[in-house]
């Protein structure tokens, strides 16, 4: 029928677009958001600005091993280690990162640093808005200001990025309790 009557294709197409228009207005078909007020949820494994994690007791996870700097293809990471003072520890191991800097202009957000890290200290977080915002007191007018130092990336204990794989598995298990067995 649709092939034989001339103009049927147009009528079908018009119906389809009207359906989508109504779905956008009254339903949930709308796919854009009002950006600064609303944001789209990032996926679990999103690679944004780096964060440096702490243990529950407040000690830094980073032990200053420089494996992230070695893994970095863009050579964006600079780590300088120092011996821990047993009386006043910064990290649980022998050494800690006295300086930890990432040049955000060189970083390609590949996540190799996160993979290389033996303690899970450095992670690529969910923040992607490395632009001037009213609520972030950061001056972006100079290239030097794009070199992030340790204090800018350290987060409170428990604020780290959840392990993306286990998170994804949890989601699937919530939807289907037998998922792990199927897998």
């Amino acid at each position, binding site marked *: 029928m649709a092939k034989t009557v001339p103009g049927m294709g147009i009528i079908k197409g018009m119906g389809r677009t009207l359906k*989508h228009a109504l779905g956008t207005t009254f339903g949930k*078909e709308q796919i854009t958001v009002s950006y600064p007020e609303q944001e789209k949820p990032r996926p679990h494994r999103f690679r944004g600005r780096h964060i440096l994690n702490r243990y529950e007791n407040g000690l830094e996870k980073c032990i200053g091993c420089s494996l992230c700097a070695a893994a970095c293809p863009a050579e964006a990471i600079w780590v300088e280690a120092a011996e821990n003072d047993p009386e006043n520890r910064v990290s649980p191991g022998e050494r800690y990162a006295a300086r930890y800097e990432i040049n955000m202009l060189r970083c390609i957000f590949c996540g190799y640093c996160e993979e290389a890290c033996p303690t899970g200290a450095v992670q690529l977080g969910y923040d992607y808005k490395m632009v001037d915002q009213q609520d972030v007191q950061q001056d972006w007018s100079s290239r030097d200001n794009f070199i992030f130092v340790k204090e800018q990336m350290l987060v409170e204990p428990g604020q780290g990025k959840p392990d993306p794989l286990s998170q994804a598995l949890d989601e699937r298990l919530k939807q289907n309790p037998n998922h792990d067995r199927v897998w």
Partner: protein
Amino acid sequence: MGETSFDLMSLFWMLVRIIAIFAGVMTMVPILIWMERKVVAMFQFRIGPNRLGPFGAMQPLADALKLIMKEDITPAGVDRFIYFLAPLLAMVPALLAAAVIPFGPASWTRITDLNHSVLYTFLLASLGVYAITLAGWASNNKYSLMGALRSAAQMISYELGMGLSLITVVMLTGTFSLREIVEQQHLLGWNVFRAPTMFIAFLVFFIAGIAETNRAPFDLAEAETELVAGFHTEYSSFKFAMFFMAEYVNMVIFSAIATTLFMGGWSGPGVNFQPAAYDAAGALVTPATVVGGWPFVLLGVFYFVAKIFFFLFTYMWIRATLPRFRYDQLMNFGWKRLVPISLANIFLVAMFIAWRRDWF
């Protein structure tokens, strides 16, 4: 209304009506710009403008300001007189056509009533192509010229189908006056339904109207993807704004004419119109009246505007759905489909009129 007395008061009221209808039609332009952006956004799963004013309603104002603040460039090598004339030629015929459209049942809701107003609007509609052709020619630009050529060819192939579909309306109603056409429809039902094949005439008229106003899918004259911006490539600032406004005014006028000819104009439930009565000698016995007075006249105007907006929404709906026709497809469609179909339709409607002579 056959008043031809040119006393000062009637002249004054004529001026008031002209200004009111001019303002009304021009007010439609920003409304349409906003509506088009919102509606097309809707069709594309987007939100559309929502920053300026409630629901982004101030967006056209910002657009207009931006256009006016832009530098008005006259490129080297243009034919200056024609280059300046073309935007005016686009705007003026579009507005002139509003003079004969009956916006409501009472005489104060239209500027004037010509007894050949169908021909008058048709004439002004075809004048619009001169603006495009002259703009393209005067711009001294290959893209503009291509757009102008396409527009001229498009006009010739579509105007024929449009005229032939108009003839069926004139055959049914027996008059060229838009006022009488609407009054007949108020008493006898919409013209689309008056004969079984009238919807064909309506479809042909509507398709030709889209081509006439250079809207998608027949926007070959501007075809952004092929011709930069077609005939208005070399126009900037307010001269571009004139073309832009003319396109929207043309849309409004065309929707108004389509409503008047086929969809019953201002007629609708609640509007009780009494046509003028004449005695055997042709003298006026009682003038045309609307029962209930001016509130019901305004109700008629409301119906008219609502029907216009239905057409305008359909315009945008079609724009959001159909891709642009290729040049040769357009010519084929015009000459090989629309013209024969409307010719056959004239024959069918004539047969129907002959068969049901007592209805007319």
